[in-house]
């Protein structure tokens, strides 16, 4: 069995069915991030409607070649206006809670203990069986509520350490004020329009992650798993083996 929080605690605590699964900080940042992520997606879509077309390089606009034309109407005003106010307010919430989560995760060793693949998890047979279980939507065993499987670990690591930083990086690259101080954001992104395009595709990957994440939560038992992320305890009367 993979390492969990519980093995560090007393045996008595570990065997209690309602032992703590998620720390208070993980729970708070999870739900603040949920709020900010929903706001970012809604407002991001609103902003996108102002010009649902993507380019590569520094510049692009009507009359120049695009790399992707979304089948959406061009809508000025409305969502692209309040969408912007909302996007940056939500981005602040997202970045500040993200920083809090990342720093505490490093300090408390949460990432190392619970997110870095545990011993044996990276073996081909282990990866294969986890992938197969996911693909056929096998309901996870009760004890899996206490630890993360390898696919969870890898996808969470990718979201926390690759996709979110990429979103922030390309977001900064689109700010003429920020790039006047830190031009490397836009230079390393390959230009303003490339940054905008990467921002869009990375956002799609994050939405895909959330859809799969929520689907897996539903499969594992929506009430029990969501309850655990609110109260910190795995309920449902299941005793950890």
């Amino acid at each position, binding site marked *: 069995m993979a390492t969990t929080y519980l093995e560090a605690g007393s045996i008595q605590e570990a065997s209690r069915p309602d032992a*703590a699964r998620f720390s*208070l900080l993980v729970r708070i940042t999870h739900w603040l991030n949920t709020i900010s992520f929903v706001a970012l997606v809604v407002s991001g879509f609103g*902003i*996108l409607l*102002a*010009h649902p*077309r993507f380019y590569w390089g*520094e*510049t*692009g*606009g*009507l*009359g*120049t070649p695009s790399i992707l034309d979304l089948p959406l109407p061009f809508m*000025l*005003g*409305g969502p*692209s*206006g*309040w969408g*912007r*106010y*909302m996007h*940056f*307010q*939500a*981005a*602040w919430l997202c970045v500040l809670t993200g920083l809090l989560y990342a720093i505490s995760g490093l300090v408390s060793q949460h990432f190392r203990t619970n997110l870095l693949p545990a011993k044996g998890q990276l073996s081909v047979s282990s990866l294969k069986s986890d992938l197969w279980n996911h693909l056929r939507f096998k309901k996870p065993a009760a004890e899996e509520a206490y630890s993360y499987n390898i696919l969870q670990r890898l996808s969470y690591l990718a979201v926390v350490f690759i996709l979110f930083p990429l979103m922030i990086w390309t977001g900064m690259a*689109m*700010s*003429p*004020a*920020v*790039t*006047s*101080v830190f*031009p490397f954001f*836009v230079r390393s992104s390959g230009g*303003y*329009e490339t940054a*905008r395009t990467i921002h869009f595709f990375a956002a799609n990957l994050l939405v895909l992650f959330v859809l799969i994440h929520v689907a897996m939560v539903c499969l594992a038992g929506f009430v029990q798993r969501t309850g655990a992320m609110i109260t910190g305890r795995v309920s449902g009367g299941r005793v950890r083996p």
Partner: protein
Amino acid sequence: MSAHVSRRKLITTGLTAGAGVTGLGVAAKIADHYGLIPPDWGGIWGPGETLTYATQRLLMASGSLAREFNRSEVSKVVPVSGPQPKTDPYQRLRAGGFADWRLTTDGLVARPSAFSLAEIKRMPAKTQITHQACEEGWSFIAEWTGVPLSYVMNLVGVSPKAKFVVFWPFDESWDSLDLPDAYHAQTFLAYNLNGQDLPADHGAPLRVRVARQLGYKSVKYLHRLTFVDSLKNVVDGRGSAAPAAGYSWYAGI
């Protein structure tokens, strides 16, 4: 986690929150003094907008410069955003080759003035090739020539009390800049685009260029500059026509 610990945590959190609110009040006073509060700070989006503006103002305090480009990177297409004013006096002035057009300066200035286009073109010119992104997402690189706004400001003697310059155009898109941006080396009044007189659709005879903000801050069809110490009594008090349409006053993004 025992009940005892969580109660102590609760009290600590309460005290921190209380101190936070008091601290916020003091911080707001200090922030306003240093020009870190945007005019559209109110409403539900105020906190995010204020955080963005204050952070960027502090980051850019040294007068950072927007990227400049080579002539070979100039875009072939310069998209037009919004039509030229179809009514008089704009069309009458345009028909007369803008000979009767004047740029008037008023408000907190020692020498209220009115400059003709020829006078402005005789001032020390500045040319720069910069990237301009529209808030919609499209962008282009163009070469602009004009006079630095700081030159005009020194000419008319802007009072140390002034905190904002208000741009009055012939269309409805009035706007304003704080003085750090107004004095910025890349902020200027442009009358030439890519080597030609500014076309009517791009804001003839004179438009603002603000390199470190989105396109809508670069007001077209300019005819008057007003220097004020507060934007509270200017139109709706939000510093720009943009917030009424849902867009923020500050567009450094």
